[in-house]
């Protein structure tokens, strides 16, 4: 592919070669309408399946099935309606790349949260199992069962600097 033209008067008697478009014109891969309707029918069948499965209690498998069916549906839409099939592979690489980075996002966030131990049932704060000191980033935990908001503020003032130094 040639570099950008700074000269507006340059003609295109010798069009640069663009891969797959030797004459420089747009050649689309045209799908037949029947094929597209068949893809739509498959999407509807998968929707019916995922709704039907949601009425059956499979425990944690419910979530797995829901995400699996959604991923099959998304793949059908991306591959055929968004023409990733037969398209330049860079488009598919960009698309799948977004999910790879989303996976990194989910993985690291989950690792962070799942290693912060128990959830305090009152405030949603996380405490370190070993000492009970509030983990960095969590809300303050009241000192005792009869604690009022004043008590919370008290704990905030005294305990936190100590706890922070202990855990580094």
């Amino acid at each position, binding site marked *: 592919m040639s570099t950008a033209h700074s000269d507006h008067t340059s003609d295109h008697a010798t069009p640069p070669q*663009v891969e797959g478009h030797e004459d420089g014109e747009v*050649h689309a891969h045209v799908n037949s309408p029947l094929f597209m309707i068949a893809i739509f029918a498959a999407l509807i069948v998968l929707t019916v399946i*995922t*709704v039907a499965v949601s009425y059956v209690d499979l425990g944690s498998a419910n979530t797995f099935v*829901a995400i699996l069916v959604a991923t099959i549906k998304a793949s059908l*839409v991306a591959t055929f*309606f968004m023409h990733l099939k037969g398209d330049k592979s860079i488009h598919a690489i960009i698309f799948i790349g977004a999910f790879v980075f989303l996976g990194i996002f989910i993985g690291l966030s989950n690792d962070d949260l799942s290693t912060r131990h128990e959830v305090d049932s009152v405030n949603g704060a996380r405490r370190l199992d070993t000492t009970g000191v509030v983990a960095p980033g969590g809300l303050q935990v009241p000192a005792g069962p009869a604690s009022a908001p004043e008590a919370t503020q008290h704990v905030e003032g005294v305990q936190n600097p100590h706890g922070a130094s202990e855990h580094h």
Partner: protein
Amino acid sequence: MSSATTTEETHAAGGHGHGSKYPFLAHHFDTPAHQFDSAKLGMWIFIATEILMFGGLFVAYGLFRGQEQEMFHQAHERLDKIMGAVNTVVLLFSSLTAALAVRQSQVGDRKGTTRWLIITLLCACIFLVVKFFEYQHKFHDGLLPGHYFTAHLAQHAHHGHVLPYRAHMFFALYFMMTGLHGVHVLIGMGVLTWALRRNLNGKISKQYFTPIEIGALYWHLVDLVWIYLFPLLYLVG
């Protein structure tokens, strides 16, 4: 997109450089294929950023759900599965009609393109109307995000089924996720209307159907997000 359009129209009006062979070709592109590929590459990169934007909300959903499975399960039963399923079918159908609009523009059928684009826009309207009734019902029941959540007050007054503690977290996610998606539906309608206008103005041809293609790609993205939102919010909670 808009800057490319402006350039292209300026160019068409100015008429310098390329002559009359490709009136739609902006002068900074070598060939129609070059212009088409550039537009599509840009759209796919934009789609990747959109996936990552929604991704943040999906990560929040996943992590909170991991901690609050029972609450999520009980709160999700307050959503209307049937309305969600209807909207899913409507959006899937609109994706089909958007793809058919692209197909007709590829074969140079202007009337067909117009017809399918209008049907797609009608589906988008149906989706928003259903969503409006869903939101109205949630507002009425006080099932709102954060401190706007007042469902527990009504439950105490009527001795009804009590939602679990922190159910407002579920509805915060519900409104943020479906709300951001709803904004995308509105933007998608704008993009498709723009594509429709260009088609009606005779700017679309077998050689130049980029606006239809790009608009449809955006619309399919809206569909893709909903394909995940529907089961996660309405079906499994």
